[in-house]
């Protein structure tokens, strides 16, 4: 029994009714013809894989069939908030205060789109709580 709050149905529903749909808040380049191949490839294929807070899109596929966003902790799998499409999350990786209140560990950044950047090596180590 695992319940997720659907912001459209406005109640907790069984996890079976939902399906994850990948990273949220992706913005399509306004003018695709003018962006470089690298930028377009980043937009199309590369996704964040952070340790800690992650914003994801989910769909309430067997209920109202609407997409919405979830802020989820990838280390504890805890769902911190759900919010509608078009809204901004109130809990982010940069939001240190909320993080401390929630007792949640997060890694800073977590971009894996650029290959082996030196700062990415930190992501493979335990983050001090």
């Amino acid at each position, binding site marked *: 029994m695992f319940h997720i709050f659907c912001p*459209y*149905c*406005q*109640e907790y529903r*069984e996890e079976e*009714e939902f399906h994850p749909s990948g990273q949220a808040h992706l913005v399509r380049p306004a003018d695709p013809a003018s962006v470089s191949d690298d930028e377009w490839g980043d937009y199309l294929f590369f996704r964040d894989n952070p340790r800690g807070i992650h914003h994801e899109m989910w769909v309430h596929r*067997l*209920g*109202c*069939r609407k997409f919405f966003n979830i802020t989820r902790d990838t280390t504890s799998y805890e769902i911190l908030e759900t919010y509608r499409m078009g809204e901004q999350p109130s809990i982010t990786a940069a939001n240190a205060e909320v993080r401390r209140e929630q007792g949640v560990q997060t890694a800073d950044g977590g971009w894996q789109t650029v290959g082996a950047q030196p700062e990415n090596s930190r992501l493979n180590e335990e983050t001090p709580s």
Partner: protein
Amino acid sequence: MSEAHSEASVGNAATFDTHPGADAGVTPESPLQWSRVQGHVTEEGGAAEQIRVVERPFLGHLVLRGGAITLDEAVRAELGVSLPGKPLGLVLDAEGSRSVQWVSPDEWLVIVPAGEEFELENRLRARLGDAHFAIVNVGGGQTLLELSGEKARELLMKSVVYDVHEHGLPVGKAVGTVFAKTSVVLRRPTEARFELVVRRSFADYCVRWLRDAGREYGLRVESASP
């Protein structure tokens, strides 16, 4: 569908009556036709069982999509009931034979008695005019099963993941949820009755599941012949 009486055009949308006329020589078959052939579904009536499942075939199912305010105005004028504004709402008219259900923030399911939906669709289209909306007749794709009897709730408790207790599913609530390995729309129009809106291609599966799950209580699935 080539009969003149079954086609119409309101605005720029072509509509047609999915009920063939009596002279069309077509026998309508409900989604439970195969179950009936298999002997899983009986005629209406018979010895009282603890759970009674009755199919209501050939009802008019319309999906309305659009803005709540424009649709509410039109539905109020044509059906005499207001669109359920709150999520998961289910509203019935005074007779109890017509219902409007909240499906998602911009989508409602209207179920009316057989044969009324074509007229209703045309009247709604005429009234809505150029507003941004969509009406789809989905009556051919789904059917309605009514569950009643004292053990109906217990049957649902082992079939759906939703909380079907009084506090989870009070009268006037309708949810889409998981039923066995498929999905249904679960509705609670009155105190004594639950309703399942099942997909046509899953109707036989749902009936088999219900018969199996209801075996311990005694259950009969009934459907009036066309």
